[in-house]
Every structure is written in C-alpha cells, then in structure tokens.
C-alpha cells in the first residue's frame, strides 16, 4: 500500500506534497510553520478513508444504507476550520494492488464517492497524540468533576486512547527513564497511575505529581505500545460494524464476502513534539523505545506508521544512528534499526516541504541532512565571539 498527499492553501501551508508517506515520517521546522497542521490534515484524511473502507465493506456485503455520513467540515477541529478557504485543496491517494483511490477536497467540498472492492479494502486505526498530553494525568484524576469541560478535540482523542490503553495495559515500562508505571483501579474511583523506579526501595509517586517529562512521555509510550500490540481490531470491527447492524436489525442481510481478519490492518500514530519536557538523553532513549515498539515488537497482524513533529536536534540526529544501524549486522542486533526505505524527514518552511533525506557519497548510506539544526549553536558561538570586536 502506498499513500500520498497534496495540500494547498491551508493555513500556513502553501503547497505541500508527499508522494509516498513512509512508515516513519518526521517533520521539523520553526514554530507555527505548519508541522502540526500537516499531521492533522493527514490524520483527518486517513480517518475518512477508513470510514469509506467500512462503508464499502458494508456495501459489498449487501448493506446499502451506510451508518456513516462523512461531513468533512464537522471533522475540522481545533482551529482547522479557520484555515480553510475556497482556494484550499487537499488530495489524499491510496494506491493498493495497482489501483488508486483518491479523496479530494476542493471548493470547500469533499469528493468521497468511492466504492472499494473487497480485494483492496484495508482496516485503518488512527491515533493523534497531542502536545497537551501533559494534562492527561491531572485530567484523569478529576474526570468525574470535569464533565462537560473540554481541552480541545485532539486532547480528548489522546486522552481516550490513553484511557483505552490503560484498560488493557496494567504495567508500562518507562525504560528510557529507568521507571515503570502501574495502573490501579478500584471500584468507581478514577484510575491511579503510579510511577515506580526500576530499582528497589524507592517510594512510588502518582503520575500527576511526577516530573513533567514523565507526565508527557508515559501516556505517549503507553498509547504506542497499545496500538502496536494490544489493540484489538476484532473488537474495533465489532464496535464499528456489527453492533450497528445488530441495532438496526440488519444482521441477517449482512453477507460479507471477506472476513475482517483477512483485511490488511494499519495503525497510524501521529505524535506532536515527542521530546516534550525530556532531557536530551531521555529523548534519544524515548525515540529508540517508540521505534522498537512500532517496528520491531509490533503484533504481526498489523503494520504501524509513526508520524512525528519535532523541534529536537537530538531526536533527528539520533535517527541517523538508527538508520546507520540498519546497514550493519551487529548493529541490527543492538539497536531498533530503521530500514533506509522506511523513513522520510521533511523541513516545513515557508509553506512548503523540503526532504532532508540524502546519501553519503563515500559510503552510499542514507543519511538525514540535519545541517540546519546546527545553525542556532553556530550563531550562539559567533555572537559570543563577536563581543570582543
């Protein structure tokens, strides 16, 4: 399967094109350059494509009246709607088995009248992990008293994913911090998340009182692990399709030509600012952890995609280590290596994207050109030196 996207005239984005969205896609760029906007549009289009697949699955199974009405504008959350103009264009294409399916949004209208044959159906699951995830521990402890309150659509998506993840995951290793998180639940009380050291003899601390780095990263690694291994497509299918058919009394008419277990399954996780509140070494260890979970320890029934927006030179430079590890047998044993064709890194600048992928002319190894990320340090040094002049 291959995905591509074109976005024109949307907020800070003038013309953005990705011809082949890789399993690991990273965006760097200045604040307000549009990194998060790109991710939000991609997750939106992927979600719509998922719903079209479910609709097609039902139609192919003789259920012609779809439970899902795709109202694009209602999906534009957290300020996205204000970025749309009549000049906005979005084209999202999935190529599968040699066939192409394109969703297009032009003149403020979504064209999504596609029916996908059974052979080309896929099952997508989308997750967006917001930069506001640091509020999750506090929110989780007060959720009963905060009914009706909102911290924005994408925060609540992140919170719901964390909540679902911790219904299943009772203990989560936070190896990059030498800690672990335990989930405790009793009766009707909200869940408690306790942080313990991996070493004996230290007192556990509630997540909401732990350091900011723990509060932002614990939900992130838990959600990624959940979708890499624990998330049940079977249960999700039941919720999306079977329960609806049962309620509509249409189960008898349902004659699927293909089992949901035969559909190719993809989980796409979109992460804002992976590095939030973490020191440089912890950032490196976190990224290794996420890549290990998503690409090396994932359940074999699914393929994962990670999309990350970051400011961190430590993360991007560390990816060069994992990329290089893919070239050497011994390094592949010791690192969560990256395959060279599975990664793309882009700089978002002046409303467009520039790929930072390059090849070393001596070794022919793929590298990420992180030259720009050293500019600030060079400027600091030059200013420091110029004081004498």
């Amino acid at each position, binding site marked *: 399967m291959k995905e591509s996207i074109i976005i024109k005239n949307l907020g800070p984005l003038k013309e953005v094109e990705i011809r082949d969205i890789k399993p690991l896609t990273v965006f760097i760029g200045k604040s307000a350059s549009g990194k998060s906007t790109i991710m939000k549009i991609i997750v939106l289009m992927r979600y719509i494509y998922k719903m079209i697949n479910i609709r097609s699955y039902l139609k192919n199974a003789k259920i012609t009246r779809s439970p899902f009405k795709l109202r694009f504008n209602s999906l534009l959350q957290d300020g996205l709607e204000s970025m749309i103009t009549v000049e906005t264009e979005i084209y999202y294409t999935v190529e599968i088995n040699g066939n192409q399916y394109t969703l297009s949004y032009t003149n403020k209208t979504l064209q999504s009248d596609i029916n996908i044959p059974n052979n080309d159906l896929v099952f997508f699951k989308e997750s967006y992990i917001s930069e506001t995830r640091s509020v999750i521990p506090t929110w989780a402890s007060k959720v009963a008293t905060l009914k009706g309150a909102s911290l924005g659509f994408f925060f609540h998506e992140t919170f719901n994913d964390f909540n679902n993840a911790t219904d299943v995951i009772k203990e989560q290793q936070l190896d990059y911090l030498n800690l672990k998180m335990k989930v405790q639940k009793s009766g009707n009380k909200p869940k408690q998340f306790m942080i313990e050291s991996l070493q004996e003899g230290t007192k556990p601390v509630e997540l909401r009182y732990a350091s900011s780095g723990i509060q932002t990263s614990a939900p992130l690694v838990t959600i990624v692990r959940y979708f890499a291994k624990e998330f049940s497509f079977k249960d999700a299918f039941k919720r999306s399709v079977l329960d609806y058919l049962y309620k509509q009394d249409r189960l008898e008419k349902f004659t699927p030509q293909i089992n949901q277990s035969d559909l190719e399954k993809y989980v796409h996780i979109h992460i804002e600012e992976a590095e939030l509140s973490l020191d440089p070494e912890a950032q490196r260890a976190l990224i290794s952890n996420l890549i290990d979970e998503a690409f090396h320890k994932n359940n074999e029934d699914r393929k994962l995609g990670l999309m990350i927006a970051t400011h961190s030179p430590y993360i991007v430079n560390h990816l*060069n280590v994992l990329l290089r590890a893919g070239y050497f047998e011994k390094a592949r044993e010791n690192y969560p290596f990256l395959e060279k064709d599975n990664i793309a890194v882009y700089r978002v600048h002046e409303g467009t994207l520039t790929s930072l*992928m*390059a090849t070393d002319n001596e070794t022919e190894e793929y*590298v990420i050109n992180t030259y*720009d990320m050293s500019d600030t340090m*060079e400027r600091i*040094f030059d200013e420091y030196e110029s004081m004498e002049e």
Partner: protein
Amino acid sequence: MDSALIDFLKKDYPAHFGQEWKEDTMQVRREQRPKGKFEIRDGQLQIVQYTGNGVSVINNNSETDVEIIDFEHYINIFRDTDAGMGRKCDFIINPIAGYDFIIFNELTESEKQYIMPFTSPKTGEEKEGKLAYAKKQLEISIEKFYSVNNFLDDYEKKVALFSCRLTDTRPNGIMSKSLRAFRKPQKIFANIRAHELLIHDFVFEQRIYDNEYKVC
C-alpha cells in the same frame, strides 16, 4: 574561444533583458584551472585560493580545464536593471569546452559580523537557516538561466553545490569546546547528495570544508 556558457552570459542573457554587452567596459570575472584540486572563496581578490584558505574545494578530475565564473559579480554588472535583480549564487563552474557538467556553487561561512548587543537579533526574530538560504540562492540563480532559454539542459550533469566552512574556533575556551562537541555530528552530512532534486532536475550536493566535490 569562449565557452558556450560565456557566450550565453555575453549574448543571450543580456539580450533577453534588453541590455547590451559592452566588451570594453564589462568583464566576466573568471579564472581557469587544469586537472587537479583547488579551493575557491568569494569576496577575495583572487577566486582560487591557496590550500587551506578556501570555502569550496573542487577536484577537477576531468580531462578538460574548468573555468570558475564569479556569477555574483556578473549579475551585479546589471545592477538597477531587470537583468540584475534578485538573489544570485557565488560561482558557476563548467568545462571550457563541452557540456559534461555545470555546477552552480553557493559558499557559506559562519557569520562573523555580528554587531553589538543592543542591535543583536531579538528573541523570535525570523532568521532563515543557512541551508534554506543557500538552496534559494541556487534555485533563483538557476531560474535566471531558464527565464532566457533551456541552454542548461545541454549539460549532461547539472549540480547545485552548497559549500560551507565553519568558523575556526580557538583551541581552548569553554565555548569553543562546546561548539566543537556540537559540531561532531556534522561529519554525518559533510559529503552528501540530496534525494530530492531541485528545480530543472539539478542535483543538490553538500560539502562541509574540506570535503571536495569531484566534477566527474
């Protein structure tokens, strides 16, 4: 006899903008080099520098002499006219005969000209990264040619070369040591070619001094 590129610069380019090339008062600043390695630098009396003093290191491993044209100087000849507008890269390098390769070369050194604190950049001031700036210089320069005709498509190999030399640091001093530590990862991208082509199918190459670019 002038190369095809010099012909273009003296005839096609000025004519396109309604300008006249005046041989007695105008000059295409250039130097010629035979086979071998050499270093170049902008803003100097000579284009080609002694070893250790350049910013861009070129290895002419072809069988033909190459010419290094000061493109910035050339465009500045037409200052205050349409032909002289817009940004331009520093040098163009090509063989004196034939169309084997053409290299647009943008050179960058660290900024030493920072001014006193009261005029130094304020927090959040937009400052274009060196790589982005260099790419733009190169693309705008390439587009100047294509605005006239497709002459550059005659070349077999079209290259946009970004050459960078980092500030020399004092051997001691905490800031120098700190910067040298930060610079270590830069070896990773000291000699690379980008996967994504620039406009008109130019290949983007990057060299951190003193990594050389081989013309063939």
